[in-house]
């Protein structure tokens, strides 16, 4: 019996980890090229969820359309953040501290806008029940939605990797990440690249919140935890490495679920963060991180 429980928890962990992987990838897409700790990512995450809710449940649009529009809107929110908050600061010569603080300010504003518009009640978005009904496999169960989550995360990783390696924009992003000054000198439109990276990261995080919302509901508070996990996944995986972030996300999901088996579930978060702190102290490179170049902090 214990073995089956272990297996089920492992499966649960992989499913949860897939979502975390998505989060990690989304955050890396922004942090790696721009080096901005985009705390407002949490707001984009939650807002995308509320957009989805508003379209699908508030205005009765078909769910796939709602998801598409919500994801696109989220992408634009990310771009807006760069244009309105970060770019002007950068032009003023502000340092990363000012960027981070402004990001917090933006987060607080957006968070409270949500409270004013939608209040704090939990919301749900309805999708066809069949997606959520468990498929029993012996003593184990998982749902079609779970399978979809894992597939989507895998597809996202695959797509992002291809994008980075084979498209002009992707390569430009990597160039900017590696050596921003050099990139500007060689004529790469760095500002434009930044916008793309914000768009990409925000779109990915919106996909992540979609899975969260249809399964676990929507509340204003889910943003911070998402950013926390995204940060841990990115650092542990190694800044700049998408496969690292994905792998780290997966491992965090598995560790959390297996951990609950023996450790009281309240300590779940603490484990994740101790791992983060340990990595920061002893291996800031993470799993696959690129060696720190002159562009640290």
């Amino acid at each position, binding site marked *: 019996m214990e073995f089956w429980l272990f297996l089920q928890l492992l499966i649960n962990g992989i499913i949860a980890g897939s979502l975390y992987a998505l989060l990690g990838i989304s955050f890396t897409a922004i942090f790696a090229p721009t080096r901005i700790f985009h705390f407002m990512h949490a707001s984009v995450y939650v807002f995308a969820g509320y957009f989805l809710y508003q379209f699908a449940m508030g205005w009765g649009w078909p769910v796939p359309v709602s998801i598409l529009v919500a994801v696109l809107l989220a992408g634009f929110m990310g771009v807006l953040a760069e244009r309105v908050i970060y770019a002007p600061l950068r032009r003023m010569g502000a340092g990363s501290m000012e960027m981070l603080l402004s990001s917090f300010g*933006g987060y607080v504003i957006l968070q409270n806008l949500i409270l004013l518009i939608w209040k704090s009640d939990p919301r749900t978005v309805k999708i066809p029940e069949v997606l959520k009904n468990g498929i029993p496999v012996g003593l184990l169960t998982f749902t079609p939605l779970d399978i979809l989550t894992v597939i989507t995360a895998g597809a996202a990783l695959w797509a992002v990797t291809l994008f980075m390696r084979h498209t002009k924009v992707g390569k430009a992003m990597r160039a900017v990440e590696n050596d921003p000054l050099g990139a500007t000198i060689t004529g790469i439109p760095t500002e434009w690249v930044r916008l793309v990276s914000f768009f990409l990261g925000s779109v990915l995080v919106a996909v992540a919140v979609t899975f969260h919302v249809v399964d676990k509901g929507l509340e204003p508070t889910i943003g911070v935890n998402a950013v926390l996990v995204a940060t841990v996944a990115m650092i542990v995986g190694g800044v700049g490495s998408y496969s690292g972030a994905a792998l780290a996300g997966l491992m965090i999901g598995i560790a959390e679920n297996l951990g609950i088996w023996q450790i009281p579930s309240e300590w779940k978060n603490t484990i994740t963060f101790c791992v983060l*702190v340990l990595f*920061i102290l002893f291996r800031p490179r993470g799993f696959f991180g690129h060696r720190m170049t002159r562009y640290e902090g």
Partner: protein
Amino acid sequence: MIYLSYVISLIAVYGVLTISLNLSVGYTGILSLAQAAFMGIGAYSAAILLTQWGFNFFTTLLVGMAVAGLVSWGLAWATLRLKGDYYVIASFGFQVILYNIFLNWIGLTRGPFGIRQIPPPEIFGFSFLGPQRYALFTLGILALCLWVARRVGESPYGKVLRAIREDEAAAASIGKNVNRYKMSIFTVTAMLASVGGALYASLITYIDPFTFTIHESIFILALVIIGGSGNVYGSVIGAAVLISLPEMLRFFDVPTAVASPIREILYGALMIIFLRLRPKGLLPERITSGVVR
């Protein structure tokens, strides 16, 4: 009058918290997200020792400061040598870990059930029971903090801090042990934060872990920015404005459901605006001989 005294006390508490963070963020340029954690250490030290062991309030202050000091010294030693963003992320992680300890170590902190009926401070049999007395008490502590901060700021030690903020490499090149300075000021920040926490505990008479979250850290950070990094009087004024705002709105019959988010949106917006247009905040840094910002 009772209610007014309560608001004044709250302003004084946040004044202390803001001043303490200003020492690190404003004077020295160390961005810490862990202020709420240290506030919590002070609050829980006071709450636990006062309610369960009948300690004297001032003793609990010392205990809280000692714990906060030790912990912050350790944290600073481990992380201040990290580059820029990594230090901030580490303080973020530390904040979350400490929050989880407050929340889950039920044997010590009673976790989400909170600690109730925390008594007010007493000295030589005189109790600060009652809102007016407590307001005077907190104002007194605030004045003390202001004085300490000013002395630090105007001393040669303070000048080195500012030098570190402007250009660490340059400060190191003239022989200053940058890490030592950073660690020491960070420890002072943490200890003062714990004082603020203890005052908070006695004021509200009830604490639970949900106060000491990253959200609170961000709020105190905003107060520093808005009041003016490097200016501790500004910190007090910033605290006064932002704390009293929802209370005032409440009297104009704005429901709390609306007043609270409005206050938050305001400080978020102010934070962004001040960083852009008026990086010096409400009150600019005092010009003392030789150091111009």
